[in-house]
């Protein structure tokens, strides 16, 4: 709410600077959006008196004005159609700064000297939504008694300071001057001079003869009251009232409407004024709208109502969308002479929902949503009726017609001093606590350390002990609270084994050169389904997504990483090596929620190490990706054997360059090059990926760490080169070598792979070093030769092989 500092000063003797007051409000009551003066950034804007006007000799829409600006009279060329001699106007003198940071200079307009500019409100910083419509086409006229040469700011309320508060949902009471005055009075311990204007029912007619109100469902409108003001004239409001409104961000319209808005600001009580004569019937009610019931609101929008909307009716015909916006047909116009004025409380939830449904968030609906002070419904109605009668020259009829009225709720809460100090950590005395409640206007009764507090209805957010504790804490001041730390528990702080392993997994992959990416978990249905380690059912779908790009929960991390690669490649970043650790979501038909699996995935494309004077570039390939996965899995020290098994069937993967990864007999992931067609779809180059179901790695049995004696005895090695059929795999050869290697074979190292021109077609050469060692003694050449020959014989026997 935009709170006027000058208006506050009418009710409180405050002498702190507005900025300091705002800081105090922020620390004690509600957040502050901004503190500003309407005149910020403006200067040299003075009152001018238009002494005479003559048409511009060279233009049919410009006027030459002789304007008295205090000391002397200057000529100003003005383009406004409403400029007329004898009016007081806003003059921007040469050197002035007006809205949008525009500087005004002495100039010539079509050959005529212009020593400044006559301004409309919009030109001195007023928003289009706030400046009164009546002056839309021209300049603004100041009151006739304004003194030429004086600054215009005080005349327009622009010397005020506005404290724009950001009100939390619980503090609906702060949507009014009254609420602000009460809270400020409490925290500064000031006396409030808040003034209430009484009504003078100066018409002889009885309101109840003019309208009847029957609220069938008091749930919809727990309180509904109405008054009638007759014989009024609708006209422009006095300037002081317009200032109050525009400084609060509300456009002045006419005396009747402006009064309702003024009362809304002052009491937080939204009012609605109907043109009495135009009410289709004089029996007022409140009901749910009918499904698709048509209704034209004030903004001339023809709406289809919802059966959960609430409407105010006259003879069952809707005349207002309750608490949200009035109807066009019964709106106040210049011809209105009689006003039916409504002051009510509508159901907050229904108002909130209908405001959302119709996208009609108004000053009224905002207040109904957060609650309205039940203490001042009638006060506000009376004061508004009185002001409308005064400003419109009319009469208030006798009595209020009440359709419903809810009793005031004033909770009584018992609180003990020890409880207060126990929860807040303070050492307050009873007197201090009672003083805080006194200042807030809460009544107290003391019995030893027991304090019984009665909360006034105007603070409907305070209902339980914890609410009172908050009141004490904030008025006492959070700054005055000491700082301590919670008692120690017997818990030793540590990550769980699972959390530690996940963290280690990340660190290992980072050590291997992959940067951690965090991608979106929600993606398209197509991407959510791609690259699954194990094919699952359909992905989890959002009920009501926001964008086509995020409709389903991912079932693999790879598609997100490929999207990241595409993003990089589109930005000329061709060398991308990323990993991601995160959840995938697997739906099960018999479960309400999906299973959330931690996965680990990586993506590699481009050069592994950038080309540099010292190293040659190296384009990533399958074996780089595999090396990373192997290293990672070695670090994870799984007891079971890891194997890579070629899989030609994965739809999104290159059929000849993809392997499934097994832990023992369990499929735990896969690795490979993505299918060139998929790469094309993603708009990325040749890319290698891997994905592992981290849950399986976390759950797998780990090797226990122990030291293996390093043999003191020398190792002996033998090299063997095998010319093989192209289809023979390294795994097959290794298995054969290990099978016949004997007890002393400690290592088999593949040192060369060759396929190409020097070999017969469909042949390849694999070369291995076999290392033999005994931990108990020195091996002899004969022992080694014997073992090695067994291997050679076996290989010759098993494979179509030529030993070279």
């Amino acid at each position, binding site marked *: 709410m935009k709170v006027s500092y000058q208006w506050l000063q009418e009710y409180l003797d405050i002498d702190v600077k507005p900025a300091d007051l705002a800081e105090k409000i922020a620390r004690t009551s509600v957040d502050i959006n901004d503190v500003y003066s309407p005149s910020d950034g403006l200067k040299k804007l003075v009152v001018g008196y238009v002494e005479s006007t003559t048409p511009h000799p060279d233009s049919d829409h410009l006027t030459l004005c002789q304007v008295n600006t205090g000391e002397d009279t200057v000529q100003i060329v003005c383009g406004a159609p409403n400029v007329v001699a004898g009016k007081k106007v806003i003059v921007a003198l040469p050197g002035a700064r007006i809205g949008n940071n525009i500087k005004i200079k002495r100039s010539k307009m079509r050959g005529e000297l212009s020593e400044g500019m006559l301004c409309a409100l919009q030109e001195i910083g007023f928003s289009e939504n706030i400046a009164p419509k009546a002056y839309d086409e021209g300049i603004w006229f100041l009151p006739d008694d304004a003194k030429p040469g004086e600054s215009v700011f005080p005349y327009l309320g622009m010397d005020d300071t506005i404290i724009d508060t950001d009100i939390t949902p619980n503090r609906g009471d702060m949507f009014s001057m009254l609420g602000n005055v009460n809270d400020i009075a409490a925290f500064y311990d000031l006396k409030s001079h808040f003034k209430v204007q009484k009504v003078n029912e100066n018409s002889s007619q009885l309101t109840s003869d003019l309208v009847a109100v029957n609220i069938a469902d008091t749930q919809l409108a727990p309180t509904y009251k109405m008054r009638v003001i007759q014989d009024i004239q609708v006209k422009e409001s006095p300037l002081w009232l317009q200032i109050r409104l525009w400084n609060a961000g509300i456009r002045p319209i006419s005396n009747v409407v402006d009064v309702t808005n003024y009362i809304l600001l002052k009491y937080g009580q939204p009012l609605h004024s109907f043109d009495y004569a135009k009410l289709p019937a004089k029996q007022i009610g409140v009901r749910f709208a009918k499904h698709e019931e048509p209704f034209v609101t004030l903004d001339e929008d023809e709406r289809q109502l919802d059966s959960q909307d609430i409407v105010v009716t006259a003879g069952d015909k809707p005349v207002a969308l309750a608490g949200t916006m009035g109807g066009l047909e019964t709106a106040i116009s210049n011809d209105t002479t009689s006003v039916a004025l409504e002051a009510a409380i509508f159901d907050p939830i229904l108002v909130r929902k209908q405001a959302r449904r119709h996208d009609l968030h108004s000053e009224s609906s905002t207040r109904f949503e957060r609650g309205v002070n039940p203490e001042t419904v009638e006060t506000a109605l009376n004061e508004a009726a009185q002001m409308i009668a005064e400003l419109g020259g009319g009469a208030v009829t006798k009595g209020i017609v009440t359709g419903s009225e809810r009793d005031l709720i004033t909770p009584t809460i018992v609180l003990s001093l020890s409880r207060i100090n126990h929860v807040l950590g303070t050492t307050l005395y009873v007197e201090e606590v009672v003083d805080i409640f006194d200042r807030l206007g809460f009544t107290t009764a003391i019995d030893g350390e027991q304090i019984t507090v009665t909360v006034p209805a105007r603070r409907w957010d305070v209902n339980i002990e*914890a609410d009172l504790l908050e009141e004490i804490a904030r008025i006492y001041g959070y700054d005055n*609270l000491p700082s301590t730390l919670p008692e120690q528990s017997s*818990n030793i*702080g540590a990550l769980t084994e699972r959390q530690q392993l996940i963290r280690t997994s990340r660190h290992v992959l980072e050590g*291997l050169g992959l940067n951690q990416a965090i991608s979106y978990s929600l993606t398209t249905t197509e991407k959510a389904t791609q690259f699954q380690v194990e094919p699952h059912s359909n992905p989890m779908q959002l009920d009501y997504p926001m964008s086509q790009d995020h409709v389903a929960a991912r079932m693999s991390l790879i598609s997100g990483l490929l999207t990241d690669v595409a993003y990089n490649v589109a930005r000329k970043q061709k060398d991308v090596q990323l990993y991601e650790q*995160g959840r995938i979501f697997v739906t099960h038909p018999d479960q309400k929620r999906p299973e*959330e699996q931690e996965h680990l995935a990586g993506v590699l494309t481009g050069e592994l190490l*950038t080309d540099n004077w010292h190293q040659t570039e190296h384009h990533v390939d399958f074996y780089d990706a595999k090396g990373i996965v192997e290293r990672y899995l070695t670090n994870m020290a799984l007891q079971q054997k890891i194997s890579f098994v070629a899989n030609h069937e994965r739809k999104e993967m290159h059929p000849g360059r993809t392997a499934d990864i097994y832990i023992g007999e369990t499929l735990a992931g896969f690795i490979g090059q993505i299918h060139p067609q998929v790469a094309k779809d993603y708009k990325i180059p040749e890319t290698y990926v891997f994905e592992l179901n981290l849950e399986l790695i976390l759950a797998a049995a780990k090797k226990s760490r122990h030291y293996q004696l390093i043999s003191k005895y020398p190792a002996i090695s033998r090299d063997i080169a095998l010319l093989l059929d192209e289809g023979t795999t390294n795994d097959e050869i290794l298995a054969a070598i290990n099978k016949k290697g004997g007890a002393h074979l400690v290592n088999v190292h593949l040192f060369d792979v060759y396929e190409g021109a020097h070999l017969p077609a469909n042949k390849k050469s694999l070369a291995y070093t076999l290392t033999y060692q005994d931990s108990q003694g020195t091996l002899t050449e004969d022992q080694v030769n014997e073992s090695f020959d067994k291997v050679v014989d076996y290989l010759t026997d098993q494979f179509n092989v030529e030993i070279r």
Partner: protein
Amino acid sequence: MGLREKLDELRQQGLKDVDSSQDLDRINDIRVKLLGKKGPIKEALRGMRDLSAEERPKIGQFANEIRDDLTRAIESKRAELEQAKINAQLAKETIDVTLPGSAVSQGQPHVIQQIIDQLVDLFIGMGYEVAVGDEVEEDHYNFEMLNLPKDHPARDMQDTFYVTPEVLMRTQTSPMQARMMEKHDFSKGPLKMISPGKVYRRDTDDATHSHQFHQVEGMVIGKHITMTDLKGTLEVVAQELFGDELKVRLRPSYFPFTEPSVEADITCFNCLGKGCSICKNTGWIEVLGAGMTHPNVLRMAGVDPDVYGGFAFGLGPDRFAMLKYGVEDIRDFYQNDVRFLTQFDQKG
């Protein structure tokens, strides 16, 4: 010429030869020639038998002195030449040390992960346990158990991705409050937990909004947990992340699951409180929300609010990272531009 004169001349000539040598081979030659078995000194000493018994030891001593002198001169020259040779070799081996070193690939943790890990480590040090919750939650835990019944206005502030009427993408990490309270054995002392993770809101992505972001939830529930404990804890967090010269300010706020509720601000680290565009001229930056756990929340989780109480807080690593490093677009965190990811490589 007497033997003494002869020896003296040998010395003069020898020293001259040594001095003029330019390489190690020559020095070697001189050593062999002068000091060898067939060298002139040995030769001269052989002539001593012609001398008197009186003179013999004197000349012998003199000859030894000359031999020692020459030996010293040769060794010193040799050392000098060897050093020169090494120096020449080293000079030849000189490289441009300003050329860049070999590229070594090293990946970095994501900046949000870094902030989460920093917080996790901080709280572990204070005896907290880390509780990781599900990203797909029940409405019951995400809202109801947090004192947010259906139709509560605060639900509007958290536009939610629903999967079914009962299941949703969690909008906050707070569901772990109820889940942990239900699990905790309070006879073993207070519950102290933090819960980091991803959360989701039904938002349109732009520079300041993301439908996916992170939160870290914290909660302490025990018999003697006070609001001053909350204040002290928030100060530790803010100062750990942003520096301990910054002040912390608490101000009232509203969350349905805490009462009293507060928002914690820190002194703007950019202007140190003077006011600037980052802090919108307030001198303060909002960093987290917190409060004393609402009795309804305790009660619903089966904890007696008359006996137990405590606090909860929630903070946003994305927002922290944006503030701390001046990241202007939240989407940068999830698009994973390598130039973005590799910037946060400081380990110290």
